[in-house]
């Protein structure tokens, strides 16, 4: 019974994946396009990959983007997870109020959030730069984390935690051995989502960016007036290639690790 349904799901999921990757494949192809502007195909070239590495602005933007995305996703996930754990303990009435407050940063139009942060920073005279960018990205990330981790917590009963405490576990032990494993997938999903959003954010970043904190989206949006250069496509292609390579490497290491474990277990 399960077989045909399973394969139906698998076909469906692959179709969705094709939908997700179709534009990616196209933009990769166009990184080899001879034309400076991605309008029509004019011929094959490697030149954008070569000029990419000489383009100081692109490389600076890439490093800024990564620094900001990694730092802000970790901070946002930590703060958001803690807040979600706490919110779970509030009474239903308070939970509703708190949830409302938590949703606000998601609801507010980005341009307003960016502007309000800019007003704040300029009022207190804090110089714009990477720090203000990270602060802004954490701010819009926290809510997403709380929402995702909360969904996970609300599916988990209190019984296990209570049982653990009855058995004399310290709060830390309860958290480490009961709660954390339950919410771990939520934390992973949150990290992924906040990292992704930070990497691609333009509007809010625009308002809080200062000298020397231009990120990739800021650089790319700045290019649109003259036409986005295929160097950006080349960079995107490399980013995907590197990610997939890292995945493969970690997969190989994981396999090796597992092989070792099972070897050591065999004699027993």
């Amino acid at each position, binding site marked *: 019974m399960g077989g045909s349904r399973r394969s139906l799901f698998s076909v469906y999921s692959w179709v969705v994946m094709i939908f*997700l990757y179709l*534009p990616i494949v196209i933009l990769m192809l166009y990184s080899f396009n001879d034309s400076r502007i991605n309008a029509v195909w004019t011929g094959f070239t490697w030149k954008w990959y070569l000029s990419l590495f000489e383009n100081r602005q692109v490389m600076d933007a890439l490093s800024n983007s990564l620094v900001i995305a990694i730092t802000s996703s970790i901070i946002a996930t930590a703060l958001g997870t803690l807040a979600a754990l706490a919110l779970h303990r509030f009474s239903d009435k308070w939970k509703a109020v708190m949830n409302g407050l938590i949703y*606000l940063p998601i609801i507010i*139009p980005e*341009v307003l*959030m960016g502007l309000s942060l800019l007003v704040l920073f300029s009022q207190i005279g804090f110089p714009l730069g990477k720090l203000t960018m990270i602060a802004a990205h954490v701010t819009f990330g926290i809510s997403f984390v709380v929402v*995702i981790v909360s969904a*996970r917590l609300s599916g988990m009963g209190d019984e296990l935690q209570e049982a653990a405490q009855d058995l004399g576990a310290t709060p830390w032990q309860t958290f480490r051995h009961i709660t954390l494993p339950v919410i771990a997938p939520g934390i992973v999903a949150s990290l992924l989502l906040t990292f*992704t959003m930070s990497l691609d954010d333009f509007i809010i970043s625009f308002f809080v960016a200062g000298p020397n904190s231009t990120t990739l989206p800021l650089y790319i949006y700045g290019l649109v007036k003259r036409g986005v250069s295929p160097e950006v496509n080349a960079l995107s292609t490399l980013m995907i290639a590197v990610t997939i390579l890292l995945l493969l490497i970690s997969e190989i290491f994981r396999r090796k690790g597992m092989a070792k474990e099972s070897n050591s277990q065999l004699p027993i």
Partner: protein
Amino acid sequence: MINRTKWLSVPGLVWLGIFFFIPLLLVTVLSFMERGTYGQVVYSFTLQNYVRFFDPLYVSILFDTLVVSVLTTLLSLMIGYPLAYYIARMDKKWQHTWLLAVMIPFWINFLVRSYAWVVILRTQGVVNTFLQSLGLITEPLPLLYNFGAVMLGMVYTLLPFMVLPIYVSLEQMDRRKLEAAYDLGATPLKAFWHVTLPLTRPGIVTGSILVFVSSIGMFVVPDVMGGAKSALIGNVIQNQFLSARDWPFGSALSIILMLLCIVLIFLYYRVIRVQEREGGVE
């Protein structure tokens, strides 16, 4: 100790207080100010910005936006749920690979991805050239710069907001309950409807709200995919800040939009809660 747990929310709330609520207050004040001749903010109190919203033009744009957002949410749910289901049911070791695979396209800049869609869909684009070479069509199909293209762009952009939360709650589902349903002779469809769906409700609710509120403020997708021909409320707000230079009106529109979202989410929760109760009685 349970009470002490509540303190864990302090860092996050303090952070939001400083970087969100205080700035939000500043902006709320702004929405009651006047626009100066050159787009500066004049500090004298007025309600005019709120009154201006009730121009039939803006109200009807808001209505259009709501239609687009609801459709986007439904489509994302229909496309995202089975994908999340498939990922949550596969072998553990593949789950994270698939999750990452779903997210990686979104690491590529949004504009660059949207331009790629334009290359695929335009008159001399990939799809039209392909269909023409097969002889299926003689004239290129108008695939871009219309409502369908906007919907495609919206769903494409917001799908991860649906897939991730649903995956998170599906992964957690107690499969014994499903097996119990099968033991009691439920058909797969019935088991899904009465067991899986209710158990993954938190994920569906979260995903729907995330997609809905994100789509309601969207403005780049209608510009790139829709040829900037159908203004959504996000475009109108954006224009107040970045072309009309009317910050007070832009702030007022934003605040109206926020209040509306809060009311809608509240109603949505009410409906869900009623359903849950009824589900319980069954």
